[in-house]
């Protein structure tokens, strides 16, 4: 922890440093770095999460559940364990060992990245400036307008392309302040040691199996967000948008029309 200088310095929006004034900065350094680390973490957590899920593709509600009890629902997929009744005549190879190790290791990286993002977001005012909708924008009328322009597949231009619109802001706020905390919470609530220290973490969710089921639905919601997010980036111009998230600048090259 000897390098406290580095993260704070990295929090300063890049517009304040070396970027020439003529090319406006779109995303600050900390947003870009944490965005791509989170992206990487998400894919790893998704793949390893699926591998872990395959060993028991049944979901329950409440405290307990096993193959002798009635599930809330069961995914129509084969399993990596012979004792799970799936209706398939074969068993998938067991990948739980490395999947679990990688899942938890990358969960640490994701949580620490989220911590850096949260501290930098507070420090730079990123949340208030870029994510929280202004009072004037937060109306049904504005919401319908934004929705309508999305449905007409209109591309953002000019000043609009330089900030987030209302729908974006709401979607990002929901992911950052609802889905991410929820998926971390439900993950911790499945840890027998963690819940021994913080029993409320699992009791509030209604039990260990409820936590597991909510963890699954939160990850589904994140996958849904990812699909819409990538679709929107494609519509808005993949090159310039992805470039902006890498270099911080919107770039001067013309987009395809």
């Amino acid at each position, binding site marked *: *922890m*000897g*390098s406290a*200088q*580095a993260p704070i310095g990295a929090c300063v929006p890049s517009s304040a440093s070396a970027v020439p004034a003529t090319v406006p900065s779109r995303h600050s350094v900390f947003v870009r770095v944490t965005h791509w680390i989170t992206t990487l973490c998400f894919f790893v957590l998704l793949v390893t999460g699926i591998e*872990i*899920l395959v*060993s*028991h593709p*049944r979901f329950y509600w409440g*405290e*307990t*559940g*096993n*193959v*002798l*009890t009635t599930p809330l629902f069961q995914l129509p997929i084969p399993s990596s*364990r*012979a*004792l799970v009744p799936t209706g398939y005549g074969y068993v998938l190879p067991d990948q*739980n*060992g*490395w999947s*679990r*190790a*990688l899942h*938890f*290791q*990358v*969960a*640490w990286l994701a949580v620490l990245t989220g911590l850096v993002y949260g501290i930098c977001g507070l420090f730079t005012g990123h949340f208030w400036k870029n994510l929280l909708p202004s009072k004037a924008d937060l109306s049904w009328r504005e919401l319908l307008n934004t929705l309508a322009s999305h449905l007409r597949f209109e591309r953002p231009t000019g000043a609009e392309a330089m900030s987030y619109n209302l729908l974006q802001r709401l979607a990002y706020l929901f992911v950052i302040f609802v889905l991410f905390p929820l998926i971390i919470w439900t993950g911790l609530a*499945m*840890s*027998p*040691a*963690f*819940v*021994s*220290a913080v*029993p409320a973490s*699992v009791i509030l969710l209604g039990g*260990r*199996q409820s936590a*597991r089921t909510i963890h699954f639905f939160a990850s589904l919601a994140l996958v849904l967000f990812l699909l819409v997010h990538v679709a929107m980036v494609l519509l808005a111009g993949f090159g310039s948008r992805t470039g902006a998230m890498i270099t911080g600048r919107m770039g001067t090259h013309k987009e395809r029309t």
Partner: protein
Amino acid sequence: MTDLSRRKMILTGLAATAGVSGLGVAARLAEKYGLVPPDHGGIYGPGETLTYAAQRLLTRHSLAREFSPSQISKRPFANEISPLSDDFKRLQAGRFADWQLSVDGMVERPASFSLAQLKSYPSRSHITELACEEGWSYIAEWTGVPLSHVLNLVGIRPQARYVAYFSIDPDWWDSMDMADALHPQTFLAYGMNGEDLAVGNGGPLRMRLPRQLGYKNVKFITRLTVTDNLRGFGKGLGSAAPEAGYAWYAGI
């Protein structure tokens, strides 16, 4: 510009040096306070170490959740077990009267206990959840003798850091640190839901640590070894689980 980049370079260098030496100090402190798991090597070592260290700082003395009798699972699921050996079948035929638990290693008085002896010590029960790493779980009332009671009988030496425990199944062994070994809910369990522990559930004697996942709760326990390091056991990773790719510390 050159001034700026030189200053940047010096600052980066200083930060990197501070970071590396900080990590070195952290590693030494972690080792000293027992925050490094035996399977800390390899590509998943950082994750395993972070998890174990965080849990040891957070949960050294915490108690596993206990449930009310009405929450006991009507249909507890006994996971599959390897085919029983001839040795086991012979002991089973004798209703486990000759089952022995031997305790050796860093103890003052190595000893061997029969089931009847273990049952003659003050018994304890708790209603706790057994959760498998696969995702399923059940709640049962477990009865046994606290491991700490047996360790007190044989007298552990002060340098002891781990208790390794072995199943009659030669491929199945594990170990735990002293925080878990001396934990009041860690049992040598011989009863479940008011009856003798069934063979499918690990009877006649199962290690029961409710703060860790199912696979740490090794069935058919015949031997304990108290030790100060685990390098001499198996591949030196602390248990059979890491040798199969699973974490040594399963409190997650």
